[in-house]
């Protein structure tokens, strides 16, 4: 299988004045195309740091990181920008939608910075992405007119729009209630079934079981890297959730 991600002894050290914080201390793993990986670990274990490196938002202090076969070591700032644009879709905990900007325009955003101009019709491309996250009737809505779950789906559509090799999500359901979280996971599972590689960070062990594989970090090192046994499906859980709501009145 094609390797989407390969890291070799990836390290990241933050320096604040004299103090050095070793956020990642030699991380090795590889992720194949079509995988669905949940990154777990306690707070401060280096999950966000790792995601930022994988997302080419930040450069490692040492070690190598291959993305889609390209060694990102020594690439220029502009080449990093091009990789973020072409290969990666990033989903944030706080949605990060542009305020007072319609869902459609938010989703179009990565296409504006697409220098290769793969897409003749960016508006159509953005509409398709919104349809994929079931927001076909919310094109002209502003973020303020959407629920949290809907906003996160707009953000996922934005991550999808440029057909990236990889979707990275740092605690995508951190700001959502558990029902809406399940909806978002159901969407991720659906996208993964369509062949998109997904790496996401979650704190909830229950949610990690929607993934196919879990990588657990502690103090900047991988302490567990395993396939999920008894994988759960968010769609089914949602069904159960609805039924229980009908049966047990409050």
């Amino acid at each position, binding site marked *: 299988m094609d390797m989407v991600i390969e890291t070799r002894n990836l390290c990241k050290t933050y320096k604040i004045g004299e103090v050095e914080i070793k956020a990642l201390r030699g991380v090795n793993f590889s992720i194949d195309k079509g995988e669905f990986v949940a990154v777990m670990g306690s707070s401060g274990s280096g999950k966000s740091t790792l995601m930022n490196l994988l997302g080419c*938002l*930040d450069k490692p202090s040492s070690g190598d990181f291959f993305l889609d076969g390209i060694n990102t070591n020594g690439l220029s700032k502009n080449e990093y*920008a091009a990789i973020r*644009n072409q290969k990666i879709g990033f989903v944030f905990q706080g949605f990060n939608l542009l305020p007072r900007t319609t869902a459609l*325009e938010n989703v179009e*955003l990565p296409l*504006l910075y697409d220098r290769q*101009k793969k897409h003749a019709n960016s508006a159509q491309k953005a509409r398709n992405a919104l349809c994929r996250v079931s927001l076909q009737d919310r094109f002209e809505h502003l973020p303020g007119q959407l629920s949290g779950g809907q906003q996160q789906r707009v953000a996922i559509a934005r991550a999808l729009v440029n057909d990236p090799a990889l979707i990275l999500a740092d605690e995508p359901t951190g700001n959502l209630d558990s029902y809406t979280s399940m909806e978002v996971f159901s969407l991720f599972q659906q996208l993964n079934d369509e062949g998109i590689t997904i790496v996401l960070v979650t704190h909830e062990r229950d949610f990690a079981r929607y993934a196919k594989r879990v990588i657990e970090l502690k103090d900047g090192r991988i302490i567990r890297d395993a396939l999920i046994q008894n994988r759960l499906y968010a769609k089914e859980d949602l069904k159960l959730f609805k039924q229980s709501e009908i049966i047990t009145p409050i």
Partner: protein
Amino acid sequence: MNSKNIFKVAIRSILKSRMRGLLTTLGIIIGVASVIIMVAIGQGAQENITQQISALGSNLIIIYPGTTASGGVNKGAGSFNRFTLEDVEKIRKKAVYIKGITPIVRTSSQVIGPGGNWNTSIEGVSTDFQEVRNWKLKSGAFFSDRDLLSRSKVAVIGTDIVTNLFPSQEPVGKYIRIRNVPFKIIGVLESKGQSTMGPSNDDIIIAPSTTVLDRLVGGRYINLIQASAKSVELIDSAQVELRLIMRDSHRLNETEDDDFSIRNQTQITETFSETARTLTLLLGSVAGVSLLVGGIGIMNIMLVSVTERTREIGLRLSVGARSSDILIQFLVESILLSLSGGIIGILIAFGVSFVLNTYNIMTMIITPFVVIISFFFSAAVGVFFGFYPARKAAALNPIDALRYE
């Protein structure tokens, strides 16, 4: 990002906060409008002066009593020889470069006519007046040398006098009374047109200099002498000639300075134009300062905007924007803001000048030069004051920007 997208993004962000955009550009709007209006007022004044002086006649040379106190000792008022009709006669006899010469005896008075009373100025002149001042008659005739010799009580009047004293009748042949002296009107001057600077050219009564001296002013002194050179090329020679004749007439020896000064029309025009130009420059630069202040306003708002939109910048970077894309976006935003301010300012200036010109409140001349300069200046303000905030925005790194609260 291609240029179409750059403008799309910049216009979208500006439209998202219209009120702020308008307030930001207000400084530029006021700045550009006031620069153009001020310069237009200055140039209008300049044009007025030029027009009025050229209305005096071609090849005009004016001799004033007294010096303009440049070098030498100012002898003080009254010590110089005032002009008399003898001076005029001497010039008429001796000068060869002169086509015509007239004394000017000025006074002003209440004038009574069939239409009522009117306060106006009276000039006593010679028969050369029409020649010297290049002024034709609308009707009637000018007075003759005989009138001049016999001190006839005749007058030629400007069209303003006709309007005010003879509203509904032909004035030629009628009488007016100036200081209780009846004058017979024998002619009406052509209109020289209204000018906004000073009194109208047409608000005047012309009479023989001898009559005015005798009946209205009393005494023998005339205010000044006007002459016209035979041609434009001969103006300089005529001035030299006039000076020598006047020095001779006033019996000045070699050590004495002139007790009169001679100016030609070009010199007078230049003096006044120079003043008007200085005025224009002064007005323009005062207004220019307000344009600069407007630019600082733009910088201020752009800086606030960069801080406010830090997360937006982080997001744009995270979806693949280059630093240069961010730089250009903010730069284009500030240029668009200042340019639209500039355009609105230009339109306002045109509106103001249209109204003031139409209702004859003030002559304003907007030259394309000023408009083009202020247009590009407002663009330059956008670049200059937008660059620092834009560079600040472009220097952000995606993670810090995204984390910014």
